[in-house]
Each structure stands twice: as C-alpha cells, then as structure tokens.
C-alpha cells in the first residue's frame, strides 16, 4: 500500500492531467461547440439541464456519496434564490459575485442548522425531518415575499460578473455550463479526498466506519454543509436567470426530480449525474414531442398534452422504481463500461479493464 513518493506523484500527475483534459473538453463543449450546433429549442432544454447539474451534484454528495437521503434540495434552492432576491431588493447595487458568495455562506450556515439535528437520525427519519424543512422554508419564503413585494414576486437585476451579462438563452447556457463543470470538479475533489472515503465508508457500513475511527457526525455534517452551500449558489443563479422570483416555484415535485436524477444516474457517480440530469430534465420534452408525432391519433395527443405533468410524475416514479429494482448502480455502471472501453482505446492494448480477477497493472 505505502506507495513510494515517485509512484505517488506520477499517479497524481496522471490523474490531474486526465481531470484537466476532461474539464477542458467539457468547457469547450458547453461554451463553444454545443451553442453553435444546437437549435434554440434544444439549447433551451440544455440550459435547464446544465442549471440542474449543480443541484444534482449537491444531492449526490449527501445522498449518493454519504448515503443520507435528504429531501431538503428544493428548500436550500429556495434559500439561495431568496437571498439573491432579498439582497438585490434591499441593496439594488450589490455586485452579483457578492450575492453568490453570500448565498454560499448563508447556505452553508443553513446546512449546519438543518444538518446538526438531522444527522442524528437515520434513513426514513432523516427523510421526514428534511421534508419538514422543505415546508418550513416554503412557508417562510412565502411570508417574506408577501411582506416585501406581494404576489407578483421579486424582480431581479441583470446578472453581471466581470462584465459578463447573460441575457439570451445561449448566454445562460454558457453561464450554467461553467457552473455545472465547476460543481462536478468540486464533487470529484471531495470524492477522492479523505472525507470522500469516509462518506463512502459511512454509506456502506456506518458502525464499521465509526469503529475504524471515522467521525460520523463531523463527516455527515460536512456533507450537508457542502451540499447546501452548493445548492444555495444554484438558487441564487436561478433567481437571476428567471428574473422574477416567486415562492411557488419550489414545489415538492422538484425534490422528487433531484432524487430521480441521483438514483437514475447512480449513487455517487459523477458522469451519472450528468446523464441522469439530462434524461430527467429532457423527459417531459421528449414526451411532448412524442405526442406531437402521434398526429394520426388526435385523441392520444390531446390526452398526453392535457396530462403532461401527471405523465411526467408517473414516469419519474416508474423510473425510480425500475432503476432501484433492476439497475441499483444506475446509468453509472453503463457509462463506466463505455468509459473504460474508451480509455482502453486511448491507452492502446495491454490492459483489459474488465478482468476483475486479474491483478491490476499498477503505474502503467
């Protein structure tokens, strides 16, 4: 186990290079390639996918890596959004970057407040207690909105970081793309840290992890704090993006949507988060275009159109059940196989990644 220092640095340099290459590729995709390729319609869907990724990453940290199922996703999103709305409402000239930083800090603090009692309970109890937080936050944001601006909602100023002022869909696509990649890097950094290993150990066997010296409360609380800070930033971005913020946006459906992404993508999987978010977000649009193509049968098309949200809910539910039953590792396992096959091509022959009983080639 104790790798020699030379070995260790070679290993980490290689990892760093791979990470750098993949994120540059991703950055090029979302900033240059995709915007010039996709139609406006698809870009619109893509924007929502990219916007969703940081939240999915955040839930994947708490639920996927640490194994603590939380229904607080929409609540923290609302907290972040209303921090942005409240700050710019009170001090209209607050720079965007300051708003995002404030959202991250207050989100982290909220994560401590919510997490400290929540991490003492397990499983279903944790789910129920985070669910309670969802409704408490919704109630508070409703009161705040009605007191400050009334039913119409908060009006947000133009997003502006270093002169970058996204207005059109294509610009928001790029903005959310950058944040999505940053959030994925954050997840990767934590996954391969000591904390990340502790999370996975907790997920698999809490008692064994504690016996080996993992500090349970600390590790779980940190998962909550990192996750809620990330979601709060996403919430603030969301407020700027929609321009008019109303509390009704943060419905319970949103919670289910994020849980579906994490389960479909695979617990703790980084590529799975991207694939899961893409699938879950674009599903209703696929259903709609499907119904439009059923021109011959007006009855069906009409039915689908009238019930699109119910069909969507039903499909999420069905997908969650199907994945939990038949693909508990999520899309991740499929993605990983394809990825290893690609890596194999890249490295040339000589190491077959799908031979589990063979001792792995080390430092090759």
């Amino acid at each position: 186990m104790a790798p020699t220092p030379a070995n260790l640095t070679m290993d980490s340099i290689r990892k760093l290079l791979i990470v750098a290459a993949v994120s540059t590729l991703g950055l090029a995709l979302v900033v240059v390639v995709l915007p010039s390729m996709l139609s406006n319609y698809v870009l619109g869907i893509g924007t929502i996918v990219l916007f969703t990724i940081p939240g999915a990453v955040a839930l994947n940290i708490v639920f996927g890596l640490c194994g603590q199922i939380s229904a607080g996703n929409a609540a923290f999103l609302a907290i972040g959004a209303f921090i942005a709305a409240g700050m710019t409402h009170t001090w209209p000239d607050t720079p965007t970057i300051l708003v995002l930083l404030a959202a991250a800090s207050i989100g982290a603090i909220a994560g401590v407040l919510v997490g400290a009692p929540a991490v003492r309970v397990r499983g279903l109890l944790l789910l129920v207690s985070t669910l309670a937080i969802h409704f408490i936050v919704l109630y508070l944001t409703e009161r705040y909105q009605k007191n400050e601006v009334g039913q119409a909602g908060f009006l947000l100023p133009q997003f502006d970081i270093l002169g970058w002022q996204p207005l059109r869909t294509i610009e928001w696509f790029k903005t959310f793309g950058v944040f999505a990649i940053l959030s994925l890097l954050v997840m990767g950094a934590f996954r391969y840290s000591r904390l990340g290993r502790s999370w996975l150990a907790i997920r698999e066997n809490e008692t064994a992890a504690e016996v080996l010296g993992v500090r349970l409360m600390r590790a779980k609380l940190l998962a909550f704090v990192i996750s809620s800070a990330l979601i709060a930033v996403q919430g603030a971005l969301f407020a700027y993006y929609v321009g008019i913020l109303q509390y009704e946006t943060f419905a319970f459906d949103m919670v289910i949507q994020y849980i579906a992404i994490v389960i479909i993508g695979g617990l703790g999987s980084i590529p799975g988060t991207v694939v899961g978010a893409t699938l879950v977000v674009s599903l209703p649009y696929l259903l709609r275009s499907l119904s439009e193509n059923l021109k011959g049968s007006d009855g069906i098309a009409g039915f689908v159109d009238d019930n699109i949200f119910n069909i969507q809910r039903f499909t999420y539910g069905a997908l969650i059940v199907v994945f939990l039953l038949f693909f508990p590792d999520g899309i991740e396992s499929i993605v990983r196989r394809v990825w290893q096959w690609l890596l194999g091509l890249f490295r040339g022959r000589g190491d077959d990644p799908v031979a589990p009983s063979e001792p792995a080639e080390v430092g090759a």
Partner: protein
Amino acid sequence: MLTIEGLRVVYPRTGVAVDGLDVTVERGEAVAILGPNGAGKTTTVRAVTGFLSSERVSVDARRLEFDGASILRKPPHRIARAGIAVVPERDKVFRELLVEENLEVARGRSGDQALQDTQDMLDELFPILVERRKEQAGLLSGGQIQMLAIAMSVLKRPTLLVADEISLGLAPALMDEIVVALDKIRDELDLTMLLVEQNVGVARRLCSRGLVLESGHVRATGTMDELAADDSLANIYLGGTA
C-alpha cells in the same frame, strides 16, 4: 486485561443467548472461544466490542472490563478507541472502496512512524493486497478479504484483537497463510487475542487456552491441549477431529 464476569445477553425475540459467562484474558495471551453453532460465541464477541448496544438487546454483566475500565454497553467506537480491534464475521471491509482506500479509512489521520512500520510489515505479510490495491475490495476472494480485514483492524496497533471465525470457508493453504501472518502480527505488535473459532486446528495453533460454549453457558475451560484431549468434548462440540 479483559475481564468478563457473569455476562448475560438476552435478545428480544429469541431469548437468552449467553448466560453467566466468565472469561479472563491476560495481557499477551491468546484465548479461543469454541463451540457449535448457536452456542453464543458471536454474541459474546459482539457484547465485548459493543456491537449489541445499538440494538434492542439486553446486555448485562457483573464485570465487563478492559484495562481496568468498564466497557459494558459502551458504543463500538469508544471501545475501539480504548484499544480493542475487531475482525467481524460479516461486513469486514468496505466492498465498494478500493483496497488501498479501505486501508486509508482505517488509517484515518494518523501517519506516524509506528503506523508506517505496521503498514510495511502488513505489505510484507500480504503481498497480494499490495498487488490488488487499486481494485474494489468487493472483488477480492474470501481469503483476501480476510487479510484486508485483519490488516485494517491491526493498523492502528490495538492491544486486544477480537476475531470472529477467521478461518470460516477458507481453503487449508490460505488458512495456513493467515495463521502464520496472525502469529507474526501478534509477536510484532504484542497483541492479546480473543478468537472465536469452530476450527480446533486453527485455535490450537494460535491459542494457549480456550473455553467451550454450549447454549450460552461455558461447558469447559482449559488449555487447548486439555480441551483437545477430552474426547467427549471433541466429539460433541468440536465436530470430531482437530
């Protein structure tokens, strides 16, 4: 070092599992707990390592002390910190983590020279773990998982190692390798051991003294030679040949 007096464990459904158990393990000693399935061996181990305290199980004893301090109903991580390491019968390793990640979890924050020395010794004893360090622990064979579990439990130099059925389901050659390794680890780390075993051969090679449990009671105690020489015990409780 470890004193158990009048240990009584009652499960909510199945009733009394261990009743009136007395064991003393002196520093440097290795003691075997023998007996047929359902005799209360694993329950005893779980009571000592604290794994019963989280469940709705009643654990009582006149004395349950380690190094002079009571460990009765203490949570598992407290007991671990006091210096008792455990190799449980099931769920020994984190199957989804890599082999090296398992060891890193066990290592935690400490990184002193003593730990490095222990790690070096383990690398030498279990070269297969070095070879397969980049693989998921769940892909290891039963014997390799056992090696990893032993390595993880002794990495931080505990004073007492409690191991549950370390030879279960292992091929003779592998078992031999593990027994030799445990012997060496004990010498190097000055370990005291409490081993639950069904395999009398393994118990005799590692332990000087043993006790035989039956239905939650101590049926016999003595040196391993005495126990093995007692034919009636051997036939009834130890499954025949040693």
